[in-house]
């Protein structure tokens, strides 16, 4: 099945209570399948066909505060339209799970993949996970609910899939049974919710005397995510034999150059690295699977001995010294006292394809610079941009 269908199937198995969504390419298939499940009686849930993404997330937050298990899905402009509501989801501690079929932002209007949409809301207090393929996306949905609804976390979780490259890609998906799903993910047991039997105020007005502390609680919860996700993954691993960790690692043990990327490009890069290894080039790969919180410790385990890092960003940050992932990588290295050169490439905006051969070229460019003793170019390079 396609990644979108796999996600919808996982959401059904997760026995969600409320789905509030608005169609947008390339995520539409997810909500179409969910609509079918609800209309055919295969999933006992309320599907709120809202009139905008702003309302999709608003309805999700309200339903979540009522104690329901809630899912939505969006992309691009839809995520941008949700922007102000995303902060409520995290600050009001709503364990919503959202699939994001990453897509470029207008203008020019473009329906294809890049990560600009999610990067635009990266500071909204959401846990953000990148899937590299349909299998990961399917498995992460269960883990996302488990993580989000944990009393120590209570944060919304985004599961990112590259628009079209993943959303529409068809592959064989190993599924879990409904009973395994129900055991792994029993019905949500909210502790605080809207109910007349215990009247509570949600969304109060906080002034400078309290606002800071309330907001900081999101940071505290975020800090607890890496450990909690690892525990959840362990349980899931025992059930399925599948485990993804916070970063995907490929041939980093003896790597001199390590490439860092996120999403479906990881598979392409892996293929390129395999070929380079055959030629004796010591290249490795780190795939950012957990983006927020940024997996600082996991990354540091693998980069200490490399001579250079290549960070591939599928989003730009105009005017910034680095694109988003490179900013985090550089901060990670700096805090660890590592002065490793970082080559930062922005690539593939608006769905422009990147091939394994191109990844080879990128890696070779840096390898040759190192060999020749040339300094690694600073700032941001734009791969494949026509002059």
């Amino acid at each position: 099945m396609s990644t979108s269908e796999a996600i919808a199937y996982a959401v059904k198995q997760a026995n969600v209570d409320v789905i509030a969504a608005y169609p947008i390419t390339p995520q539409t298939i997810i909500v179409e399948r969910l609509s079918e499940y609800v209309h055919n009686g295969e999933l006992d849930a309320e599907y709120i066909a809202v009139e905008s993404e702003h309302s999709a997330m608003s309805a999700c937050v309200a339903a979540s505060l009522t104690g329901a298990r809630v899912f939505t899905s969006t992309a691009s402009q839809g995520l941008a339209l949700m922007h102000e509501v995303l902060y409520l989801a995290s600050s009001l501690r709503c364990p919503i799970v959202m699939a994001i079929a990453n897509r470029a932002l207008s203008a020019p209007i473009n329906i294809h993949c890049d990560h600009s949409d999610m990067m635009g809301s990266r500071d909204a207090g959401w846990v953000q996970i990148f899937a590299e393929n349909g299998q990961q996306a399917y498995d992460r949905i269960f883990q996302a609910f488990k993580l989000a609804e944990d009393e120590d976390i209570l944060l919304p979780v985004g599961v990112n899939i590259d628009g079209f490259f993943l959303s529409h890609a068809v592959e064989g998906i190993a599924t879990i049974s409904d009973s395994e799903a129900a055991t792994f993910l029993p019905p949500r047991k909210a502790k605080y919710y809207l109910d007349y039997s215990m009247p509570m105020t949600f969304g109060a007005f906080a002034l400078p005397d309290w606002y800071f502390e309330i907001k900081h609680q999101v940071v505290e919860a975020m800090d607890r995510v890496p450990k909690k996700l690892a525990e959840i993954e362990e349980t899931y691993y025992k059930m399925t034999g599948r485990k993804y960790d916070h970063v995907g690692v490929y041939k980093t043990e003896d790597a001199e150059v390590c490439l860092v990327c996120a999403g479906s490009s990881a598979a392409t890069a892996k293929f390129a690295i395999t070929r380079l290894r055959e030629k004796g080039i010591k290249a490795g790969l780190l795939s950012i699977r957990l983006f927020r919180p940024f997996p600082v410790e996991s990354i540091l385990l693998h980069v200490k001995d490399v001579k250079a890092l290549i960070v591939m960003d599928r989003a730009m940050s105009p005017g910034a010294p680095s694109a988003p992932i490179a900013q985090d990588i550089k901060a990670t290295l700096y805090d660890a006292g590592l002065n490793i050169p970082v080559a930062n490439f922005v690539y593939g905006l608006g769905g422009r394809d990147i091939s394994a051969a191109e990844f080879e070229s990128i890696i070779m460019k840096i390898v040759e610079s190192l060999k020749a003793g040339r300094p690694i170019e600073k700032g941001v390079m734009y791969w494949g941009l026509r002059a």
Partner: protein
Amino acid sequence: MLVGEIKTIKELYGLDLIAPGHRACAGCGALIAVRQILMASKRPLIVVSATSCLEVTSTPYPQTMWKTPWVHLLFENAATAASGIEAALKVLSRKYNRQEHYIIAFGGDGGTFDIGIQALSGALERGHRFIYVCYDNEAYMNTGIQRSGATPLGAATTTSPVGTKIVGKTQQKKDLMEIVVAHRIPYAATASPSHWKDLVNKVRKAQSYDGPSFIHVIAPCTRGWYFDTSETIKVARLAVETRYWPLYEVENGRYRITHPVPNPKPLEEFLKVQRRLSHLLLPENAEILESLKAYVNERWERLQKLSACFA
């Protein structure tokens, strides 16, 4: 006739859903209207507020006025929040025996006429069971009296001041009720806290329907309309008695004026007691006054004809 019509004040609930000590201005029309609505509302109840004076004055963290479950999300999404709660309770009661609740969403005129109209329209179209109450003080009062789609023609606000060239707001008030009625919801009504019996029975009637309902209540604002804090109810009553604020309902498409005003007071009586509008009585503003009067009269006549159709 409504089954269980409230005839005396003793038939209302007490003030058990809100605590004293909120931070609204003395004489706040919105809070009076909200209080009356809550005293009428059936329970169990969940209240939603849009960002508004109501939200700001009732929940200064860590305090809250609300003794009923209450939620505020944003300025423009109170109707959507109500949708989410309603849908959640529906499925949770089905799957896990959660108790169903009545839901009332409150929004000001800014949050309803303007920034929130899309969310309101969506929620009404989808048919969620809840009451949306627009408490209308005819301007963005929470941000300091800026004009809204609800501000009447000629009114002075901080973004439609009485200047030497342009006098107050240059557009008529948006007819929100007609927009709401166009959604063919079971019940929509206007109300005024000056006519509490009319108001509370409209709340009860709204809650008798398994679908969305809408109550548009006038909420005189002492700060934005400029009248003495002791005059709120008097000003609201003048709005009704001059036919400026017709009290009517549209029940399953049938219009009915619930409080006929056979001998209306001149509109000037309503205008002269509030500084935002009293300049319309100056000779140089006669044209604006006439235009406002025409708006008020045409609306009343239209409502009368519509009521007669369904009588």
